[in-house]
């Protein structure tokens, strides 16, 4: 794991911790400790006997853990203090060879207050323990990042492969392509559109039947594109038209027919991949219809 991957993994972990209350936090703690300490034994509550005030322990070392994960620790300090006393008394009564005791709290990186720290130190002294203290989110994070990379990923979740992330490009074209890529294909798309009769234009521009079909298919989704453009107050439709027309005029110099069509598709696509190309064809379909790209048949005047 390099520095960037580690930073990203830490953020994933922190995000998990911030969302983890109750059992979810306990699961994260147990999974981390299972990797960090080979002798760690998680204690699952069992029927009416519960967990006997012990959420997990390292039997060989006599180290015991009790987990507490309120939604907002700042509202629960009185609960923390009382739970701490009750849980430790319960633990001591039911388990032997308690050398160390740790109260694992999801403080959501806010820290624990002085009263809690005071109580746990009193417990340490009065019960003659080797050590006692709080394990907070930051401690858990530190334990986790001492582990092997594969173990870290199992807990934080895998870092997305940058190759699968959409290109972060802020151009007008990519903004719209990004939107179209997320549109679902609906059964009801077809009736929403009255497809234009552009046979004359297809013939004039020497486009094949297969390209014509691609433009028609793109047209089925053009209502969603129009809706998106309508709801955008930044005059996106004009900017997008200018961009598509610019690409068309540039490619038109050297190419024609299907070759020109594919040159526009590939030039406007962030990557030459199906998912991007189909989105570009939806945009092309709109501007093909409005005659902003490809030659327009001359209308004969009706006398």
């Amino acid at each position: 794991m390099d520095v960037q991957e580690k930073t990203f993994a830490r953020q994933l972990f922190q995000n998990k911790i911030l969302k983890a209350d109750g059992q979810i936090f306990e699961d994260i703690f147990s999974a981390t400790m299972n990797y960090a300490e080979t002798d760690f034994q998680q204690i699952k509550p069992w029927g009416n006997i519960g967990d006997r005030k012990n959420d997990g322990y390292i039997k060989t070392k006599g180290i015991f853990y009790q987990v507490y994960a309120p939604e907002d620790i700042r509202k629960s300090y009185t609960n923390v203090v009382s739970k701490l006393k009750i849980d430790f008394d319960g633990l001591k009564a039911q388990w032997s060879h308690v050398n160390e005791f740790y109260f694992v709290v999801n403080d959501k990186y806010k820290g624990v207050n002085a009263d809690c720290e005071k109580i746990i130190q009193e417990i340490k002294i009065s019960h003659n323990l080797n050590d006692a203290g709080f394990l907070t989110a930051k401690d858990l994070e530190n334990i986790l990042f001492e582990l092997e990379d594969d173990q870290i990923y199992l807990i934080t979740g895998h870092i997305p492969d940058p190759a699968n992330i959409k290109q972060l490009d802020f151009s007008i074209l990519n903004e719209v392509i990004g939107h179209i890529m997320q549109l679902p294909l609906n059964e009801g798309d077809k009736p929403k559109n009255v497809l234009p009769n552009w046979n004359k234009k297809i013939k004039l521009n020497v486009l094949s039947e297969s390209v014509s079909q691609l433009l028609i298919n793109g047209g089925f989704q053009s209502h969603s594109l129009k809706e998106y453009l309508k709801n955008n107050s930044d005059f996106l439709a004009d900017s997008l038209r200018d961009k598509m027309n610019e690409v068309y005029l540039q490619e038109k110099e050297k190419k024609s027919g299907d070759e020109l069509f594919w040159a526009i598709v590939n030039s406007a696509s962030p990557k030459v991949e199906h998912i991007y190309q189909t989105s570009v064809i939806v945009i092309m379909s709109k501007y093909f219809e409005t005659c902003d790209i490809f030659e327009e048949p001359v209308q004969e005047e009706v006398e």
Partner: protein
Amino acid sequence: MIIPTKHTNFSESLLGFGSYILTVLESPESIDSLWNQYQNDFNKKLYYAKHSFDNLLLTIVFLHSIGVVKEQDGVVIKCS
């Protein structure tokens, strides 16, 4: 942007939005009250095009540049 185009209809253009602003500007109004008025009308579908707050400011600048509105004591006033 200011005038309608093939892809920007009248209500989406600043000229169209300006005509709406002049209609609702019967008495001096602050920018905030004009914005609230527009949002209410847009939600009630009394005005069809979506505009951002930036567009409202650009429209008022446009109206000011052609001499149909002026600013006085922090409010927008229609010139007589």
